[in-house]
C-alpha cells in the first residue's frame, strides 16, 4: 500500500468518471442528432456550432431548476431513489479495463480502476442494485403512474437479468475466468469471443438494452402510457440524475459488451507488442472508445427504428424466449468445448 | 438412497400431474401409488437393492435405522393419504401441488434419516420445513391459517438462522462439517477458543432443533400453528415431520454431543428441557377447550417423552424413538382423521359421538388410549421403551418418575374426549362418513393394537 497508488487510482477514477459523464452528456446530443437524421430533420442546432453546447445548456437548466418534493411523498426515499440510480451507474465502470497500460512518471499505470478476479460478478451485483433506484423512486413519489411504472420497470429488469446471466455462462465456459482483464488478454492473443458466441452476444445485447430501459424496452417510462413513468414527479437535478444514469448505463453496457465479445481495447490485425507501451495504450483506448461509440449508435438506431414492446410481449420474450435460448446456447457450448478438448 | 431420490421424482411427477390430470380424485390415487412404490423401494433398499448408486462423498450414511424410519414415515404418509386424502382436495384447486409438497417433505425426511454431515442436516431440515410453511397457509382466505403460516415461517426461519450459526461455529471449532470429527490433527491448535466455539455451536444447534421439535421453552409457536393450519395438514405436521426432527436430533446427539460430554453436561440440560416440555405440554393441554388445540399441546407433551431417548442414547433409546415415532404418528393420524370429519372442534362437539358414529368413536378411543400409553396399544410400548431406555442408564431416575406422573396427567385430557364421546349426551355434527373411511379407521386401529401386542414386528427390522 503506497500513497502513490492511491493518488494514481484517484486520478484514474476522476478521469474515468468525468469521461463517462461527458460521454453520457454528449450521448443525449448524439441521440437527438441521430433521431433527427433518421427522421429527416435537423436536431439541436442553436447552442453553439451545430448545437454542440446543447447538452451543457440542458444540464445547467436542470441544475438550476426549482427542486420540488411533493408533500405526499416519502422525502428520504424520494431523494434516495435518484441518488442510488446515479451511484450505481457510476460504480459499474470500476472493473472495466479501459486499455492496456501506460508508463508515466516511472510507473506502470494500469488502465483499469480495480482488477478484481470476479469482475463480472461485480458488474452484475452493481447492475442489480440499479433496480432499487427505479423502485424507490416510483414508490416514494406516491403516484399511481410512478408506482405502476416502477413495478413494471423492476420486473422487467430482474426478468432480463436471468438470460443475461445465462448468456454469460456460455462465455465463461470458453474463457474460464471471471476477470475482465484476463478475458481481454485472451481475446488479444486469440480470437474475439463474438466468433465463438454469436448467439450469446445477441442475447446479451437484447438484455443489455432491456437493463438500460432503452426503447424498445422503455416500458418504465413509456411516455404515452404512463406519462414519463417512474420519474414523473421528479424535477431539477434529481430528474437529471435519472436521465443521466440511463445514458451512463448505456455507455457502460456498451463498454462491457465490447470487453466481453469484441476484444475490449484490442485492435484487430495489429501486434501491439511492436509498439511502445504508451502508444499501444493510447491506441487501445481509442479503439475501445470507438467500439463503444458504435454500440451506442446501434442502441440509438434501434431506438428510433423499432416500436415499443407491449408489456406481455416483453415478459414473454424474456422468460419464454431468451431464457430457453440461453440455456440451449450454454449446453451446446459446453458440449462442443468439451468435445474439442478431448 | 431410493427413498431420497424417488420421493423427489414423485414430487415432480405430481407437480406435472397438476395440469396433466384433469380429474382431481385420481390425483389422490396417483399419490397413493407413488407412496406405495416409494415404500417398496425403500424396503428393497434396506435389503441392499439400491437403484441408484451415487457417491455422496460421505455426506450421507445409510443405515438400517434410517431405512426403518423412512419406512415408517412413508408408510404413515401412505395411511394418511389413504384416509384423509380426500380432505386435501378441499383447499383450493392446488391438490396436486399439496401432494407434491408432501413428497418433498418426505424427501427431506429421508435425507434427515441418513445425514452424515451438517450440510445434509441443514438441507434435510429445510427441504422438510419449507413445503410445510406453504401447507400451513394453504387455506388462503382463512386468517388463522395465514397467521399460522406466517408464525411458522418466521419461527422456522429464525431457528434456521440459529442452526446455521451453530453449524458455522462448530465448523470454526472443528474444521469440518462431517458428523464424525476425527479429533487431533484437524483441530486448529492456533485458535485456542476452538472447543469453546464448538460447544457454543452445538448449543445453538440444539436450541434450533428444539424449535423444530417444539420442545419447551421453544415450543410457543406450536399451538398457534397447529391450531391455525388446516387440520388435515396439522395431522401430517404434528406426526411424521415431528418424528423426523427427533431422528435428526438423536443422530446429532449420538455423535457430536456425546463427543463433547466432558465439556458440557448435556444430560442436565436435556433433563431441564424435558421437565419443562412435559410440564408445559401436559398442564396447558388440560385447560384447552378445542380438541385440535389440545392435540397441539399433547404433541408437545409427547415430544417431552421422545426427548427421553436423547438422554439415554442406548440401543433401547434408538429402538424406542423409532417405535415411538410409529406409534405416535399412526395414532395421531387416526385422531385427526376423525377430527377433520367433525364440524365442531370443541370437546362439546364430540358429545354423544358413540351413539351416532360408533365406529368412529371406538377407533378414536383406541387411538386416544394409545396416546395415553395404555397397554395393548402401540403407545404403551412406545412409552415403555422410552422409560426403559432412561432407566437402563441408571441415572436421572427422578426424571422417570416425573415422566410417568405427567403421563398420568395426560390421561386427563385424552379421556375428556372419550368421556365426551361415550358418556355425554349430544348430537354431534359430522361430515358424511363413507364406509371406506370407516374401514380405513379400523385398519389403523388394528395396526395400533397389533403393534401394542407384537411390537417386535417393527423392531426386528433393526436386527435381521
Amino acid at each position, binding site marked *: 500500500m503506497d500513497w502513490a497508488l492511491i493518488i494514481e487510482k484517484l486520478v484514474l477514477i476522476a478521469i474515468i468518471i468525468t469521461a463517462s459523464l461527458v460521454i453520457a452528456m454528449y450521448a443525449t446530443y448524439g441521440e437527438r442528432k441521430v433521431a433527427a437524421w433518421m427522421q429527416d430533420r435537423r436536431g439541436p442546432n442553436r447552442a453553439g456550432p451545430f448545437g454542440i453546447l446543447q447538452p451543457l445548456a440542458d444540464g445547467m437548466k436542470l441544475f438550476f431548476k426549482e427542486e420540488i418534493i411533493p408533500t405526499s411523498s416519502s422525502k428520504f426515499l424520494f431523494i434516495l431513489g435518484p441518488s442510488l440510480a446515479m451511484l450505481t451507474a457510476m460504480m459499474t465502470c470500476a472493473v472495466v479495463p479501459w486499455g492496456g497500460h501506460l508508463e508515466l512518471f516511472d510507473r506502470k499505470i494500469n488502465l483499469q480502476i480495480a482488477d478484481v478476479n470476479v469482475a463480472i460478478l461485480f458488474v452484475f451485483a452493481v447492475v442489480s442494485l440499479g433496480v432499487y433506484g427505479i423502485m424507490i423512486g416510483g414508490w416514494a413519489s406516491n403516484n399511481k403512474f410512478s408506482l405502476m411504472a416502477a413495478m413494471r420497470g423492476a420486473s422487467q429488469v430482474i426478468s432480463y437479468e436471468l438470460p443475461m446471466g445465462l448468456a454469460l455462462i456460455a462465455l465463461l465456459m470458453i474463457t474460464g475466468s471471471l476477470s475482465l482483464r484476463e478475458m481481454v488478454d485472451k481475446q488479444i492473443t486469440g480470437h474475439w469471443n463474438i466468433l465463438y458466441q454469436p448467439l450469446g452476444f445477441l442475447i446479451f445485447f437484447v438484455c443489455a438494452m432491456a437493463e438500460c430501459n432503452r426503447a424498445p424496452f422503455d416500458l418504465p417510462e413509456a411516455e404515452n402510457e404512463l406519462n414519463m413513468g417512474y420519474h414523473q414527479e421528479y424535477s431539477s437535478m434529481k430528474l437529471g440524475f435519472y436521465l443521466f444514469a440511463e445514458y451512463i448505463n448505456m455507455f457502460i453496457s456498451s463498454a462491457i459488451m465490447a470487453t466481453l465479445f469484441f476484444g475490449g481495447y484490442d485492435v484487430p490485425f495489429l501486434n501491439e507488442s511492436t509498439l511502445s507501451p504508451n502508444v499501444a495504450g493510447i491506441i487501445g483506448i481509442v479503439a475501445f472508445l470507438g467500439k463503444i461509440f458504435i454500440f451506442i449508435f446501434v442502441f440509438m438506431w434501434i431506438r428510433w427504428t423499432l416500436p415499443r414492446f407491449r408489456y406481455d410481449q416483453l415478459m414473454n420474450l424474456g422468460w419464454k424466449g431468451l431464457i430457453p435460448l440461453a440455456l440451449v446456447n450454454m449446453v451446446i457450448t459446453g458440449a462442443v468445448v468439451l468435445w474439442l478438448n478431448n | 438412497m431410493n427413498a431420497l431420490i424417488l420421493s423427489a421424482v414423485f414430487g415432480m411427477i405430481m407437480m406435472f400431474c397438476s395440469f396433466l390430470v384433469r380429474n382431481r380424485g385420481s390425483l389422490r390415487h396417483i399419490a397413493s401409488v407413488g407412496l406405495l412404490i416409494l415404500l417398496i423401494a425403500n424396503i428393497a433398499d434396506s435389503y441392499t437393492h439400491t437403484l441408484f448408486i451415487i457417491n455422496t462423498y460421505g455426506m450421507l450414511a445409510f443405515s438400517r435405522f434410517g431405512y426403518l424410519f423412512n419406512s415408517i414415515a412413508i408408510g404413515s404418509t401412505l395411511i394418511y393419504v389413504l384416509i384423509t386424502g380426500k380432505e386435501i382436495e378441499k383447499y383450493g384447486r392446488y391438490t396436486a401441488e399439496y401432494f407434491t409438497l408432501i413428497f418433498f417433505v418426505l424427501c427431506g425426511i429421508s435425507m434427515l434419516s441418513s445425514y452424515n454431515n451438517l450440510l445434509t442436516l441443514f438441507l434435510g431440515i429445510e427441504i422438510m420445513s419449507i413445503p410445510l410453511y406453504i401447507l400451513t397457509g394453504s387455506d388462503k382466505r382463512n386468517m388463522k391459517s395465514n397467521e399460522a403460516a406466517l408464525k411458522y415461517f418466521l419461527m422456522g426461519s429464525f431457528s434456521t438462522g440459529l442452526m446455521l450459526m451453530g453449524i458455522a461455529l462448530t465448523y470454526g471449532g472443528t474444521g469440518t462439517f462431517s458428523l464424525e470429527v476425527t479429533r487431533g490433527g484437524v483441530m486448529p491448535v492456533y485458535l485456542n477458543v476452538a472447543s469453546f466455539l464448538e460447544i457454543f455451536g452445538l448449543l445453538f444447534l440444539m436450541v434450533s432443533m428444539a424449535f423444530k421439535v417444539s420442545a419447551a421453552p421453544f415450543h410457543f409457536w406450536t399451538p398457534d400453528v397447529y391450531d391455525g393450519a388446516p387440520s388435515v395438514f396439522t395431522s401430517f405436521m404434528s406426526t411424521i415431520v415431528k418424528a423426523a426432527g427427533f431422528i435428526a436430533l438423536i443422530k446429532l446427539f449420538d455423535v457430536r454431543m456425546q463427543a463433547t460430554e466432558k465439556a458440557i453436561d448435556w444430560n442436565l440440560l436435556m433433563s431441564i428441557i424435558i421437565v419443562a416440555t412435559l410440564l408445559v405440554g401436559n398442564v396447558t393441554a388440560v385447560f384447552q377447550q378445542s380438541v385440535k388445540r389440545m392435540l397441539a399441546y399433547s404433541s408437545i407433551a409427547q415430544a417431552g417423552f421422545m426427548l427421553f431417548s436423547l438422554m439415554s442414547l442406548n440401543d433401547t433409546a434408538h429402538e424406542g424413538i423409532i417405535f415411538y415415532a410409529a406409534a405416535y404418528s399412526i395414532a395421531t393420524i387416526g385422531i385427526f382423521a376423525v377430527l377433520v370429519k367433525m364440524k365442531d372442534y370443541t370437546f362439546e362437539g364430540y358429545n354423544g359421538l358413540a351413539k351416532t358414529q360408533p365406529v368412529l368413536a371406538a377407533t378414536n378411543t383406541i387411538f386416544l388410549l394409545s396416546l395415553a*400409553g395404555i397397554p395393548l396399544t402401540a403407545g404403551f410400548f412406545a412409552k*415403555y421403551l422410552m422409560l426403559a431406555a432412561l432407566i*437402563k442408564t441408571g441415572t436421572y*431416575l427422578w426424571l422417570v418418575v416425573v415422566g410417568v406422573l405427567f403421563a*398420568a396427567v395426560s390421561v386427563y385430557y385424552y*379421556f375428556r374426549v372419550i368421556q365426551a364421546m361415550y358418556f355425554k349426551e349430544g348430537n354431534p355434527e359430522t361430515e358424511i362418513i363413507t364406509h371406506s373411511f370407516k374401514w380405513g379407521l379400523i385398519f389403523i386401529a388394528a395396526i395400533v393394537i397389533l403393534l401394542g401386542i407384537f411390537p417386535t414386528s417393527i423392531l426386528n427390522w433393526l436386527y435381521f
Partner: protein
Amino acid sequence: MIALLLILIPLISGLITFFTKSERDAKSLSLFASILTLAVSFAGVYSLFGAAQNAYDTTWLSFIGARFSIGLDGMSKMLCLLTGIAFPIVFGAVYGNTYKKSNSFYALMLLMQAGLMGVFLATDCLLFYFFWEIVLIPAYFLCSIWGGEKRITVTFKFFVYTFVGSLLMLVGILYMYFKNPEHSFALQSFYHIRLSATDENFVFCLFFIAFAIKMPVFPFHTWQPDTYEQAPTAVTMILSGVMVKMGLFGVIRWVLPVMPNATAHFSQLIIILSVIGMLYASLIAIRQDDLKRLIAYSSIAHIGLMCAAIFSNQQIGMQGVMIQMFNHGINVIGLWIVADAIETQLGTRKFSELGGLAQKAPALAILLVVMALANIALPLTNAFVGEFMMFNGLFRYNIWVAVIGGISIILAAVYTLNMIQKTFYGNTSIVTDGAMEISTGTKIMLVILVVVVIILGVYPEPMLQLTNDAVQTALATVK
C-alpha cells in the same frame, strides 16, 4: 392349556358378545361363557387334565425377554376360582335387570374377567402389568356408562388413581428388569434379584403404591367409596369382590418374595397405616346412611386387616389372608346382591327410608342376615376362620396392633347389626310398603353363596391346603 383357556374363553366370548343383537343373546351367552370358565377353573384347581396343563409359556417379545407365560399355582388357583365363581353369580343376580346397550355391558364384563384371570395367572412381570392395566379399561367404561349420577368424575378419579399407581409400578418393573442379570421378566428370575438397600426401598415404594391404591390402603382409599357407590352394582360386585384382590395378590406374589428386605423395612409403617385405615373406615361406616357406602367402607376395613396381616410376616396370618381373600370376595358379593335387590326394587339405598323389610321379604332378610354375620366374622361363617388366623398373626407380630385392630371387629358388629336392624326390622316406611320378595334367580344366587359361606366356615381345610405353597414362597425369603 387350562390356564390359557381361562383367559381365552371370556376374551373371545366377550368379543363375540359385542356383536350380539338382542339383550337375551348377550345375557345367555355371557352366562354360558362364565359358567364354562368356572368349570375350567375347577378343572384347573383339581388339575383334572394333569398339572402340565396348568401352565402355558410361549415367546412374546423376544427382544426384551418378555414371555407370554401363565401358570396356576395355589394362590392363583384360589383366585381364579373366586373369579370363576363371581362372574356367573353376578350375571345370575342381575339377570332380571335391563341395561341399555346390554351387549356392550356384558361384553365389557367378560373382557374384565379375562383381564382379571390374566392378572392372577401371569408369571411374567410385564405380562402381569399388561393385564393389570387392561382390567382397568373395561372397568372404566362400565362404570362411566352405566353408573350413577356423578359417574363420570368419580370413575375418572378411580381411573387416574390406579393409572398413576400402575405407571409407577411400570417404572419399578423396568428398574428391576435392568437390575436383573438374566434380562428377563420371569417371576422366578425376579426372585433371584438382589438389590441394594436403597434401590430395593425405592422399587418397593413404586410397587407398593400401585398395589395400595388398588386395595385400597388408608391414605390411598379416597376413590373407593365414591366409585363403589356410583358404579353399577354388577360392576361394584366385581370391583370389591375380585378386583381389590389384585392388590393383595400383587403384594404377595410380586413384592414379598422379590423385595424381602424392603418389606421388612416398611412393614411397620404399612401395618400402622392399615390399622388406622381399619379404624377409620369402620368409624365412618357407622355414620353412613347409604347401604352401598356402608359396604364400601366395611370393605376398606377388611382389606386393611388383610394388608396388615400380610406384612405381619407370620405364617398363620398369611394363611388367614389367603383364605380371607376368597371369603371376602364371596361375602361382599353377597352383600352387594342384597343391596342391589333392595335398590332396584325400592329405588333407594338410604336406611332412613327403609325399614320393616323382614315382614315383606323374609327370605331376603334371612339370607342377608347370614351374609352380614359372615361379614362380621361370626364363628361358623367362613370369615371367622380367616379373621381368626389373621388376628393370630397380628398378635404374634405385636399385641397392641392386634388389640387396636380388634376394635374394628367390634365396630364392624355395630354397623352391620345397625344396618340389619334399620333395614329389616321396625316399621315399614312409605317406600317399603310395596316391597316384595326378591326374584328366584337372585334368591338362588344368594343361597349358593350362603352355602359356600357355611361350608367354608365349617371346613376350610381344602382352601388352606390349596394356598399353602404360596404362603411358603411368600414367606420363604422374608425373615
